[in-house]
């Protein structure tokens, strides 16, 4: 499966759900991130049951406020 995460290609052997994807890309602060799948927001409660397929586009949107919780640690 090849999907786009924040504009970059990401491949996985099998279909992942969103929680698994967050872990696989080592997303920072996964408990606070906002997730968009193909342009639509995904409710946090739906993360475990939302499975990705080839060609999906996922955006991880992070809090950025300065001084407090921070965006991805790259």
């Amino acid at each position: 499966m090849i999907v786009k995460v924040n504009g970059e290609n990401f491949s996985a052997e099998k279909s992942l759900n969103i929680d698994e994807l967050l872990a696989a890309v080592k997303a920072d602060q996964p408990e606070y991130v906002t997730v968009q799948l193909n342009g639509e927001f995904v409710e946090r409660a739906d993360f475990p049951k939302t499975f990705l397929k080839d060609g999906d586009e996922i955006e991880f949107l992070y809090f950025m406020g300065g001084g407090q919780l921070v965006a991805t640690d790259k």
Partner: protein
Amino acid sequence: MSQLTNEQLERYSRHIILEQVGGKGQKKILSAKVLIIGTGGLGAPAAMYLAAAGVGHIGLVDFDTVDLSNLQRQIIHLTNDVGKAKTQSGRETINAMNPDVQVHAYDEQVTAANIRDIIGDLDYDFIIDGTDNFPAKFLINDACVLMRKPFSHAGIIRFQGQTMTYVPDKSPCYRCVFPKMPPKDAVPTCRQAGVLGVMGGVIGTIQATEALKFVLGIGELLTGYLLTYDALTMTFRKIKIPRNRRCNICGEQPTITELFDYEQPTCSFGR
């Protein structure tokens, strides 16, 4: 408003030449009222560029005094201003830049109790969120949604920044994207509070750009987009964001109908 003076024709000549601006547009700018909440990393450059552009009324909200550590990025404040009230320092810089601009200073922190009065003081046309903490950011969003005021949200940290613009009924709001404030007990480490000084310049000036475009009624605003910037890779991304039907303040069944204060952060590294 009355005719532009010869001095204004010269001062704003580079604006007036632009087809999308002209003398008419410059008059709109001179009549505009923009409120900048927080004269820090974001608010400082935004205020300076809006003053240079000739925005007639600029409101500056800040309860703080200028600190030496601010000078690396809050370019509206100079070395001699350390210890001075930020609104005072900001006013002095703006006055020296452009006598056409009237500065309205609010030496306070925005709270649920005062933000409506501050925004309503001049019935500002556009608000710029230049704050650096989440309680303020959520409060500003809520106030602007409830008062139906357009505003620019932004945040910067380390080498990254992001911004979006809210226009009532036409765009998602901050809560569409981030429904809830992160827990108050998440205190940053010292390392997480660093920021490359120029980040505020890039993002703050984008916020000022949005304000000018709104006032002039030109171009496409960042409504329905989150613009993210990574200075290390020099990458800008414009992420399309929809209005969230389940948004708890601007969605179909809003649960938030009034303003309230969140807990303040415990780490003083917030600035």
